[in-house]
């Protein structure tokens, strides 16, 4: 169990994380938030890339700074991943396995296991620079899996990926052992809709929400309407336009409003709940 207690982090005078407390148990967590919410900073605190107060982060009851083996339980995929481009996939994995101090015995099997789990086995001897963007991301996921860590952290893992690769990522996550703690940080709600058990919404360094996906959907219950684009002009500032789409009637808008409106109410989605929180609806 990874527990964060009253974590604060500032850079100069700017407070990026503000007295944040959250517990990550086993399961898949979606860490949602807009750009600048503090998601990456939180992750860097968890991975000890940024120094933190000694008791702020504990793993199985032990402060991580005092736990020698803590980082061996962590697998991390940063937001950008493009290391060792002139090495082959195998050599890059071997390098990262070495950096992670994975025991030498059985390392070859471990590399093959991880590369196979991300469907890159046919490119294991190819140079990293010859891989497509999606394949490089998959390599990043593979290196995070090295050593079978208990905590897996993926920072914006689907950024820049095409729909097929995003689906592939979701399939990889769905196959992970549910006893692990998996944290997927993203600002794309659809990334976590089908993969995550619980959602944490960060905004301006604070936790705005922590709960299940259904709980987040319920935040928007009774606040989601479908109206025509023309009607949104009459509503003015009483609503927030969540999305637009075209159907037989023309351009329709999915809006969020705390006011009781005379339009068609629809069932809320995860994205609706998320936007309600962000926009204060």
């Amino acid at each position, binding site marked *: 169990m990874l527990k964060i207690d009253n974590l604060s982090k500032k850079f100069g005078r700017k407070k990026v994380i503000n007295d944040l407390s959250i517990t990550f148990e086993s399961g898949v967590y979606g860490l949602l938030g807009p750009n600048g919410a503090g998601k990456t900073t939180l992750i*860097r605190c968890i*991975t*000890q*890339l*940024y120094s933190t107060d000694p008791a702020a982060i504990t793993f199985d009851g032990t402060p991580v700074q005092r736990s020698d083996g803590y*980082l061996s339980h*962590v697998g*991390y*995929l*940063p*937001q*950008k*991943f*493009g*290391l*060792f*481009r*002139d*090495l082959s996939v195998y*050599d890059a994995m*071997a*390098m*990262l396995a*070495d*950096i*992670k*101090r994975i025991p*030498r015995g059985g390392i070859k099997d471990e590399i093959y296991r991880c590369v196979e789990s991300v469907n890159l086995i046919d490119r294991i001897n190819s140079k990293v620079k010859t891989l497509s963007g999606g394949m490089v991301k998959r390599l*990043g996921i593979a*290196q995070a899996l090295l050593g079978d860590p208990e905590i897996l952290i993926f920072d914006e893992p689907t950024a820049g990926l095409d729909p097929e690769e995003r689906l592939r990522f979701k399939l990889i996550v769905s196959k992970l052992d549910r006893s692990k703690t998996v944290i997927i940080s993203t600002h794309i709600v659809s990334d976590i809709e089908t993969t995550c058990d619980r959602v944490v919404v960060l905004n301006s360094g604070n936790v705005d929400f922590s709960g299940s996906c259904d709980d987040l959907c319920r935040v928007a219950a009774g606040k989601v309407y479908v109206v025509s684009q023309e009607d949104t002009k009459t509503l003015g500032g009483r609503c927030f336009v969540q999305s637009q789409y075209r159907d037989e009637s023309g351009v329709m808008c999915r809006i969020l409003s705390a006011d009781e409106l005379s339009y068609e109410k629809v069932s809320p989605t995860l994205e609706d709940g998320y936007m309600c929180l962000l926009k204060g609806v």
Partner: protein
Amino acid sequence: MIWRRIALHLKCLRFFSFVPLIVLFVISPLTFIPLLNHYGPSDALYSFLLEYTQTVFPFFSVWWIIFISREYIESDGNELLFVFKPRTLLREYLILFAAYLLCALVLYLLLLSVFPTALLEYFRLICICLVYFGISYVLMYTTSSVPLTVLITLAYSLMAMAVPSEQVNAVFYLSLQRFDGDILKTVCIPQLIIACVLIALGCFVNKKYIRYR
């Protein structure tokens, strides 16, 4: 494990990993042997040797160190490399630096047959190279740029050549004077002290490095 890591780091450099060896074992002999044939073991040749080894060799002594750091300071996702301990690359740097000096020692041992004081000059070279080690270590983790580190290090070696010192010192160290007690006191010992300070500072900035891409 560290040997495998170093081997992979050098593999990542591709052709660039051979540059110091080419300088030491190809370019230097090709430069020196014709001059030896022409001038014999003379003072003129000794002066050339001093100038050549004090400007060319120190710059390439930090070549491997600078270029293997590229992944750590310039690559996308470099933060991943700083998650796991140790966060500093000092061991790798020292091993590669020592490897370079060992290769240079081969040349100096061969030079012994021509100049009996070659090993004293080798000691002088070690002191100069240690300063370069410290300078490049600090620069890499303060500028976060390999090209800038190379440029500044190169500029320093050119400066050492271009700035004539009435009295040599630890900073502008280029001297055509044979190694003696004066050189040891005024140049080598201060250089060792400066190098220790710079390397310690380099370790500090390496540990505190948080410029993640």
